[in-house]
C-alpha cells in the first residue's frame, strides 16, 4: 500500500476555506501532532480483497500524512513543537484497526480505526475513537481499488477529527 495519504473526494477541511497548507486564518487552532503509533499485532497486514493481499511497510506513516493533510484547513495550524505556555492542542494518535476485506464476490470494505488522545499543557486530557469505512464494488483492479478504499476510510475518520479539533479549540 502506498505510504502517502491522498484525500478522497473534496474533504470538508479543504473545502472550508483557502485550503492551502500554510495559509491560515488569524487565531487558527494551534495543533502539535506528538506521535502516531501502530498498535496492531501485525503492523504490515492490511487484509485482502479476493486473492489480492494488502501490506503496508509504514501504516503509521500513512496515517501521519493523513493528519498532516488537515493542515490545509486554514482554521488549523500544525506546529512541530508547541512553545511553553502555548494553548496548543497536543495529539497522540493510535492506529487500532486498518484492513480491507472481501464482503461478497464483487464487493469489498475498508476500515480504519484511530484513537486520538487530546491533551493541553494545562493538563486537560480526553480520548476519542474514530472509525472510518468505505465500501466498494471490485470492478477491475483490486489493488488500486483497495488503495482508494483505504484513503476514503481514513478521509471519513479525519473529517470527524477535524471537527473535534476545532470544537476543542473553540
Amino acid at each position, binding site marked *: 500500500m502506498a505510504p502517502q495519504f491522498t484525500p478522497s473526494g473534496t474533504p470538508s477541511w479543504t473545502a472550508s476555506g483557502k485550503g492551502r497548507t500554510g495559509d491560515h486564518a488569524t487565531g487558527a487552532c494551534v495543533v502539535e501532532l506528538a506521535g502516531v503509533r501502530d498498535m496492531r*499485532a501485525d503492523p504490515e497486514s492490511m487484509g485482502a480483497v479476493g486473492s489480492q493481499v494488502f501490506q503496508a511497510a509504514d501504516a503509521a506513516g500513512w496515517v501521519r500524512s493523513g493528519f498532516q493533510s488537515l493542515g490545509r484547513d486554514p482554521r488549523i495550524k500544525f506546529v512541530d513543537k508547541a512553545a511553553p505556555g502555548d494553548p496548543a492542542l497536543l495529539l497522540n494518535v493510535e492506529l487500532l484497526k486498518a484492513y480491507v476485506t*472481501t*464482503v*461478497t464476490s464483487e464487493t469489498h470494505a475498508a*476500515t480504519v480505526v484511530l484513537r486520538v488522545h487530546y491533551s493541553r499543557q494545562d493538563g486537560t486530557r480526553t480520548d476519542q475513537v474514530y472509525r472510518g469505512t468505505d*465500501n466498494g464494488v471490485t470492478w477491475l483492479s483490486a489493488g488500486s481499488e483497495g488503495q482508494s478504499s483505504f484513503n476514503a476510510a481514513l478521509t471519513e475518520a479525519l473529517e470527524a477529527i477535524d471537527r473535534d479539533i476545532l470544537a476543542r479549540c473553540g
Partner: protein
Amino acid sequence: MRLHTQFGILLSALCLGACANIPAHEYVPDAARDHITSTEVVAPVQQSEIYVFVPDSQAAAAGGGGLLLALVDAGVNSIRTSKAEAAVRPLRDALLDYNFDEMLQADLKTSLSQDSWLHVSNVHVLKEATNDSLDNALAASNAAVVLFTAIDYHLSNDADVLTITMTASLFAKDQALAALKKRATSGPKTAVGNALYHNTFVFETAAPGNTIDRDHNIAALSAQNGASMRALLKLGEAKLAYMLAADLQRTAADSDPAAFSNDPDGSIVRQQNGTLKFTAKPAL
C-alpha cells in the same frame, strides 16, 4: 454449512486443487504420536473484526446470465454490503478491545497442552492466510510438525446466529513423520491432501433473544460493552480448542468420549463425514 466468501478464500489456501478426493476428516496416524517431538501451532486468522455474512445476489444465475443481470447483481451486492457494514458497526465498536486472536492463542495453548505427546512449543496467529504465507510458515518452522488452525467467525445475515469455524491440519517437517502421510505430496505444501491429520470444527449459537430484525439483534449483542457477544466468542474459542485437542487423540477405532454428549454448554455431534459441530444451548 454455506461457505462465506471470506472463509472460502481462506479454505482455498489449504485445499486448492487437492481436495476433490480427500475425505473431510483424517485421523492422526497411530504411529505418529510416539514420534512427534515438538509442535508449532500456527493459527491463520485473516479477519480483524467480526462481520455479517452477506449472500451474493443470484439475479444473473437465475436469469440465465448476461451483462444486464450481472450489473443488477453488482448493484444488489453493493447495497447489501453497505447495509451490512453499517449494521455491524455498533457491535464492532463495542468489541474494540476484545482481542480475539489473543484469546484464541491462549485457548489453544491450554487445550493442546492436554495432548502431552504433541509437545507444543509455540502458538501464534498469522494474519495473512495465503498459500504462500502458509507454505512459508511451514518451511520456516523448526518443529517436527506444524498444526494450522484456520479460523473464521461471523454472524448470519440477520445477526441471529454466531458461527465460528476452525479448520485444522497437521503437517510433518520430520522425514520419518512425513513417511506416514496417506498420499504423495501434491500442490502447495500446506494443501490439506498433504496433511497427516485434518478436520473441521464448527461452533454455532443463537444470539440471545434472536429475532429476524438485524438491527435489534446487533443492539442486543452490543449492549453493555458487547457483554453477550464477548461471552459467546469466549465460549466458542474454548469449545473449538477443546474439540480439536480431543479429536487429535482419537483413532478410527475409538468411539467419541462421553463428554462429547454430556457437555453442559450444549451438544457436540460428530457428523457423517467426521467433522465436529458444537451447538450451544439457547441462552435463557
